């Protein structure tokens, strides 16, 4: 196990360095004067331009520039936003809890509905129930989620007036962020109605972001269950006269859950990509909306740092899923 852990960890190192290289190259490919791209100023006088060039180290050879970049990254300097003039890492840290909170509730929704859907479809294999549940999953899989979000707003917010259209909480409530997670902060503030306001703002974005993971989880659960239900030990459990509920819940589902948990873990990329769209629709102040706005404002340093942080995070999430998998499945651990 330790050998596998070390090997996988070592394999991520070149990926991280490649990501650094990619972001390093990307900002140099942006059209326009490199100094203007980084400072956001236009029509700078030649003297100032030279000064900036030296300040930013652009007069150095490209290799030196790359090593400087990597050194800065390791000392926690991910660049400075040219709009807010705040360090990118700080902005990221402020906004990330919002994305994490949204993703968490999206996954809760996806698991809560996806796993039972898959189990029921597998148990009723070939029936109308199976076909309709998998039909729903196919819809979820094919859904343009930005439109799905608009449609839900149209129905629940505009027509029924049940849920708020945007933001994380009503403007009525104001309290200092403690954890950055609105539901927890609202609870800590002790203000009446704050928690339910935060939750009602979460419902639609979480459903929208959870739709594609829901479909993936439902499909994976179904096929994993079908495989397990054909195993000898399930037949034995049935033959012993155990109640169907016990057979399905205890003997089959527990073993079917391994690939399902992997599927859940691997939704990280889907969630981050989906967050860009979901946060844009619901004006959710998270990482996704921030990245899009960085482009609109030509805040390339923020985009550079943000993309690197998001991707590095994803690399580690996938590493974690892989190690978790290896921990429960010796076959992965010993495969080369």
């Amino acid at each position, binding site marked *: 196990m330790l050998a596998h852990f070390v090997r996988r960890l070592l394999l991520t190192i070149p990926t991280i360095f490649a990501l650094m290289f990619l972001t390093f190259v*990307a900002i140099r490919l942006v059209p326009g004067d490199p100094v203007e791209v980084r400072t956001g100023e236009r029509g700078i006088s030649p003297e100032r331009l030279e000064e900036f060039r030296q300040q930013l180290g652009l007069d150095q050879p490209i290799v030196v520039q790359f090593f400087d970049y990597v050194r800065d990254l390791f000392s926690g300097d991910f660049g400075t936003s040219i709009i807010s003039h705040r360090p990118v890492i700080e902005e990221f840290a402020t906004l990330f809890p919002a994305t994490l909170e949204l993703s968490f509730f999206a996954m809760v929704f996806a698991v809560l509905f996806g796993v039972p859907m898959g189990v029921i479809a597998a148990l009723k294999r070939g029936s109308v129930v199976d076909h309709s549940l998998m039909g729903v999953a196919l819809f979820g899989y094919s859904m343009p989620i930005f439109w799905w979000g608009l449609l839900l707003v149209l129905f629940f917010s505009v027509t029924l007036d049940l849920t708020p259209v945007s933001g994380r909480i009503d403007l009525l409530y104001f309290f200092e962020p403690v954890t950055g997670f609105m539901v927890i902060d609202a609870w800590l503030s002790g203000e009446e109605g704050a928690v339910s306001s935060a939750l009602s703002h979460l419902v639609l974005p979480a459903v929208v972001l959870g739709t594609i993971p829901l479909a993936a989880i439902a499909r994976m659960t179904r096929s994993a269950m079908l495989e397990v239900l054909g195993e000898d030990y399930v037949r034995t459990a049935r033959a012993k006269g155990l109640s169907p509920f016990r057979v399905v819940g205890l003997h089959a589902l527990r073993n079917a859950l391994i690939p399902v948990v992997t599927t859940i873990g691997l939704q990280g990329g889907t969630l981050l990509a989906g967050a860009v769209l979901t946060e844009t629709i619901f004006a959710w102040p998270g990482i996704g909306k921030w990245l899009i706005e960085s*482009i609109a404002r030509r805040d390339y340093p923020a985009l550079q740092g943000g993309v690197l942080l998001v991707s590095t995070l994803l690399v580690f999430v996938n590493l974690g899923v892989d190690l978790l998998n290896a921990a429960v499945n010796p076959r992965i651990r010993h495969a080369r």
Partner: protein
Amino acid sequence: MPADPAVVSAAPETGIVLAPSGTPPHPLRAFWKHFAENRGAVASLGVVVALIVVAVLAPVFAPHDPYEQFRQFVLTPPAWVEGGSWDFVLGTDEVGRDILSRLIYGARYSLFIGFSVVAVSLVLGIVLGVTAAFFGGFYEIMVERLMDLIMSVPSLVLCIVIVAIIGPSLTNTIIAVTIVYLPRYVRLIRATAKAEKIKPYVTAARVIGASRFRVMFVTVLPNCLAPILVQAALGVSDAILEAAALGFLGLGAQPPTPEWGSMLASAREFILRAWWVVTFPGLAILITVLAINLLGDGLRDALDPKLKRS
């Protein structure tokens, strides 16, 4: 193969029976037999064909010019709603353009993006994947690492970065989406080619002196096609979704192009007043993607029974 056209066309008259009874059915016929069992897949094939016909013959089907602004009919509701008119069956948008006509022309963009992304990905994927599988060594590791790198950035985020560099446009959408989805083709093709290359028939081809190029692309490649085709079919729908998302974020096709995603982007602010400008473009995306996904599932079941979702 040199064939004298005169001889070929003369064959039926000389009464040569080409296929004696008792031979196995043609592979295409066998494929169709499996495929036709799946009614959903056949129906979706119909939808996809209809979409292609509508896209190609857009000027014939569209009642209006997609760019023409009927200023006195701004935000007219669909025909069946009060205040609607049969002149504009699905209503008009914020500057009085006919939504139905825009959707019909929009099918051209979405399908073109979907098919061209997959076509380019297939060519690049086959070249990179097959060569990686055959050459191995440092080259294979480099290809693998590069694909890992692309996959380590969330798809839409990478698209955004690429568009930020090369600028938003229809062509650049295709480039960005192709780069983002390339790894899955390269990895699949490399894995399949690797599994095939150790089989006896490849050794046999080598022994009788087939060139390396011939072994790679004539002997091995056709035997890798089934999973690739399935991936390609599903890839079309992913590309359409990704391109529409870019259009929606304002980073894809630019207005006034009637691309479905960018239509939704400009419709967003009218969501409170005119539900139809928001509803129909998304519905068009959903129907197209759904049909292609169903078709892909059907293809998979028919081409590769091993992969069949029991």
